[in-house]
């Protein structure tokens, strides 16, 4: 992102929070707001044409996952897909058991749904992670009980970017005849996905994380896997998720996922190079700075770092004043006042968790952006440490 010298430079490094809709994606969507406005359930031609486009988008999503189009169900986004996957799967499996296995570092869309299910009488095991944020597949195997009906482990963590061993975990789940769900919201376009090879039964995704629009996502449901319908009503999405389709969003999701998965390796290599320059530069120039997450098994755009002796929210606001947009697992940034549960689960001491900064790079970023952050960040950390009774 360029700012001219007359204006403050703006550097958006929060691509894990959301991304701008790519102009090509928007162009694909626009006709479906106006001239292609028909209801895909209508029998006449203008409805049928939109139906064809919706089914084309379904094929694009399926192709990106190695799935069949009939296994893709459109919904409102990642949170809805997670809610549907968990509630829908355990409701349909209730007769078989009542135990769920997940991890301590899942997104709230999974964790809070699990807490809700606990109140409904299900038992949930929240597996710990190691200091890199990795889930141990052996720990998954050990946690399996006779009545385990679902295992849910995210493909990549949203805070620290750690890529989880989902293939190994999926293999264990299937060996035991247990359904396996993965929240792949952060992984699409960054990690090659093959639902067959990875033994995935249910997978959640959200378009706005990969240059598609907000408000649209999908749930992959393996053929033959029974889950309870999520929204009752008409016959849309095979009656599983009723309601007139958000057709422009669906077209946008299809266009965005095809674009994002066209050259995953090339895209990842470009991001990795920028990110490693950023991480190496920060760790070299800022004393008492550390990398959070795994050094190698991490999303190509994720730079999550901690700075001793300062607070994450203060750091974030100072960066904001310089036109740098990132996020934090700050002790004080959330209403609860608690440190990031992900960093805490990784054993990062609370005070260091408070000074964590997550910069997530994406298509908007250039070498000049990295230079600018490396120029500005060390001085801000120094300024905050000068105010601190525990400078490091």
């Amino acid at each position: 992102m360029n700012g001219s010298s007359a204006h403050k430079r703006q550097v958006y490094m929060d691509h894990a929070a959301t991304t701008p809709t790519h102009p090509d994606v928007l162009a694909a969507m626009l006709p479906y707001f106006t001239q292609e406005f028909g209801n895909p359930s209508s029998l006449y031609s203008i409805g049928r044409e939109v139906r064809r486009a919706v089914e084309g988008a379904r094929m694009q999503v399926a192709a990106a996952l190695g799935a069949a189009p009939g296994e893709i169900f459109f919904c409102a986004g990642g949170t809805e897909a997670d809610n549907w996957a968990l509630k829908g799967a355990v409701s349909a499996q209730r007769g078989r058991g009542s135990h769920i296995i997940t991890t301590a570092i899942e997104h709230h869309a999974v964790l809070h749904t699990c807490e809700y299910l606990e109140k409904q009488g299900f038992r949930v095991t929240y597996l710990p992670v190691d200091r890199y944020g990795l889930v141990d597949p052996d720990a998954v195997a050990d946690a399996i009980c006779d009545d385990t009906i679902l295992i849910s482990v995210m493909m990549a963590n949203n805070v620290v970017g750690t890529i989880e061993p989902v293939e190994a975990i999926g293999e264990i789940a299937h060996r035991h005849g247990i359904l396996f769900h993965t929240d792949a919201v952060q992984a699409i376009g960054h990690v090659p996905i093959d639902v067959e090879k990875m033994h995935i039964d249910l997978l959640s995704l959200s378009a706005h994380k990969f240059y598609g629009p907000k408000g649209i996502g999908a749930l992959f449901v393996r053929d033959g896997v029974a889950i309870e319908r999520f929204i009752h009503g008409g016959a849309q999405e095979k009656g599983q998720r009723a309601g007139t389709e958000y057709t422009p969003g669906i077209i946008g999701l299809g266009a965005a996922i095809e674009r994002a998965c066209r050259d995953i390796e090339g895209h990842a290599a470009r991001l990795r190079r920028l990110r490693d320059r950023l991480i190496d530069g920060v760790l070299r120039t800022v004393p008492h700075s550390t990398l959070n997450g795994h050094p190698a098994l991490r999303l190509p755009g994720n730079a999550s770092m901690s700075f001793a002796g300062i607070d994450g929210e203060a750091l974030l606001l100072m960066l904001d004043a310089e036109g740098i947009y990132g996020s934090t697992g700050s002790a004080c940034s959330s209403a609860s006042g608690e440190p990031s549960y992900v960093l805490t689960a990784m054993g990062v001491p609370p005070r260091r968790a408070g000074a964590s900064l997550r910069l997530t790079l994406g298509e908007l970023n250039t070498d000049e952006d990295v230079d600018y952050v490396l120029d500005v960040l060390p001085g801000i950390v120094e300024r905050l440490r000068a105010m601190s009774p525990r400078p490091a």
Partner: protein
Amino acid sequence: MYNETVMDHFTNPRNVGVIEDADVVAETSSPGCGDITKIYLKIRDNRIADVKFQTLGCAAAIASSSMATELVKGKTLEEAWKLTRKDVADALGGLPEPKLHCSVLAEDAIRRAINQYRIDRGLAPW
């Protein structure tokens, strides 16, 4: 999220730093989020002649420390003792509800410093 007064006291904090020959130094920390505030007082004729702070914390914690030190500077110890978190939050034009607890630190550190000063002089703490 924060109003202009809070942002001003965060980005240009008043009285930040150390008093090398302080008459009393006190520190307090929040058990919840781990924020720490340290207060340095220079006291002349029962009045706070100078005050400095250091804070490890969020923008609300830093701005509250800045405003609290402004409010007690030049005050008698009795007057300074009466400073409440509400006075600090009000002087800042309000803090977001989840951040109200951050204004406790400065009040607490100032009171600790005053009591320490009294104890050091053989007086009963307030």
